[in-house]
């Protein structure tokens, strides 16, 4: 699996984190697994890339300067074409009930708590993509 071939054709993922080190680690880890990754370092950049990348899944950091993750998620989920399909996973340092409510309000599908281990992250990505496949199939 290490030699990521283009043949597998995994769905594109957009990774959004203002911390470049974090974003890089996530990107490398998922790229090795064959996912086409695009990185954005701010909410604005993520929204700008959204229509061109057409990600199947977005890994979205909550705490960012400028547009935070909640706002970005809301805007993405409101997109007339892409909003219905895209799965948004919030990456959050907080694990409070209220944050999960907030996440539901913005239309997020799942979340990962920081600090996360990469295996958990990959598992979360996988189960969301699997969910998306079944949703699209039905």
């Amino acid at each position, binding site marked *: 699996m290490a030699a990521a*071939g283009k043949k597998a054709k995994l769905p594109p993922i957009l990774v959004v984190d203002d911390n470049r080190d974090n974003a890089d680690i996530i990107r490398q880890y998922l790229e090795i697994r064959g996912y086409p990754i695009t990185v954005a370092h701010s909410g604005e950049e993520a*929204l700008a*890339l959204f229509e*061109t990348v057409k990600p199947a899944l977005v890994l979205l950091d909550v705490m960012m300067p400028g547009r935070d993750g909640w706002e970005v998620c809301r805007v993405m989920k*409101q997109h007339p074409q892409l909003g219905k399909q895209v799965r948004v996973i919030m990456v959050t340092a907080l694990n409070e009930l209220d944050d999960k*409510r907030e*996440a539901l309000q913005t239309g997020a*599908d*799942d979340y990962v708590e920081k600090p996360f281990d990469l295996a958990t992250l990959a598992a979360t990505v996988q*189960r969301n993509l699997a969910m998306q496949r079944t949703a699209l199939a039905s």
Partner: protein
Amino acid sequence: MHNSVLLTDSTDAVIDRAVAHLDGWRVERRPSPQLAAAIGTVEETRAVYVCTNDPTLLRATVERAHAASIAVVVECDDEAVRRRAIELRAEEWVMRGANETEITARIHAALTRAVPSAAGMTDRVERVEYERMLHDSRTGLPTLPVMIERSRQRFKERGELVVLYFNFVRYSKIEEIYGWEKLDAVLETTAAAVKEFLDDSSPNPARLMVSFMNDDDFIFFHVPATGVPAASDGEITEMVSRLQRHVATRIESIHGDEIAALFDIYVGRAHVYYNPKIRLERLIYRGIREAAQAARGIEERERARKVADLRSSLRDRGVYVDYHPIVHADTEEIFGYEALARGVMRSLRSPEVMFEVAEEADLIWELSRLCRQRALEGLDTYLRPGELLFINVDPHDFTDPVFGEKEVSDPKRVVLEITERTAIKDYPKFRERLRAFREMGYRFAVDDAGSGYAGLGSIANLEPDFIKLDISLISAIDTNFIKQNLVETMVKFANDHGAMVIAEGVERAEEFLTVGNLGVHLVQGFFLHKPAHATAPQHTPGEQRVAPLRAVTKTA
């Protein structure tokens, strides 16, 4: 697509074969060091295919191409180059040795992806926002400023304009009960139905325009065409009632009669005449305000009529009760029933509407008493021994001195469902009343848990025997992992506190399976049973039930 150029530093003939698949394309070759410089000079360049392993040259090429908004495909010799290509945001990459089909496909993909230059990015965000300001993304309808601009010319020519203000009264209630996702869906249905109606009914659709107010109201402009008289009041009234029926039918067929029962439109209208001395926008805004006020006036008259309906219902005991089964998640056996009070009068069918009217008319206690009495009648006639009866009570009811006095023969079979939609003002006193009821044998359920009204803290405060999860947590829970996590938390909390969790509003098999797997104890919803009238006695054992399902095994 003619005369497009693929610029490359590759000498491999596979490039020529790949480009041959592209209509009207040709290949231009430059050595790697000159590739970047060639981007600006070779005309018609639409894509660059770069294969150099030199990081500096690669960077220069990609940056140059992006500055000119040209797509780049990077041929990668190894993992390092591939990483670099991604880092540089090349549109596409292929591993060296790819065949011509693959390369053609990559070039295609790169072209469709071609990212606008960095400066273009912020423009794009702004454009998206700008579009959002012009059209509501849910309904696809234009916003008011857009509509004013569109009608400006026509209005000036014709000299008059009719504004219709549609006040969809209980849409906010739908959101409160079922969550924002439901309201979004209902708004989409409404807008689609409105558009459909306009397409079908108006011979000249441009004459009637509709805009969405971002909350739950719609505004129509009717500018009569030249030479055609403006629609008369009679015609407008007739059109409005047809539209109302059309939208109501649509909502009922898509979202069910519970939601349709909440649906009500009040329409106000205002006639605006063009006056060159006054700014056109202001004329229109005033017209809208006038129409909105007219709608409100009609709403008030309607309400007065409903209060009268309620008074006569109370006098005639015009309330009946539907019993909605609550079943074990694993065996699907009936555990108890929730009593749902409904008005006999059509205008008061929905309990939400009935209680809303009662609250305005200060008849809450009386209505609650009647509903309770009606519900409790079923305890001996409809329910079988051992089955529990869940009845809804409002925190207000506990202040009613009559409540709980000799109303029930066997309080142990009664569960009081408490919602916190009405704020509890005097908590210590409320808890004291609860304790008294508990001593009599009543049990308690927290209704709508997780809806934002009842957090875990307040749930702990009430020490409930049952926790009823809000419908907004259950709908589509099979696809949303955050909802699953929240429900899991609730189940754990309930298990720790000796309570049982009830999932309400289970409408689909997937939802049923999911809540079962999460360890939810009891389930209620249309998927298993619809609420039934109490007129006929309850089914006898062995009778076939609705929607038989395979057994669910709990994992939690």
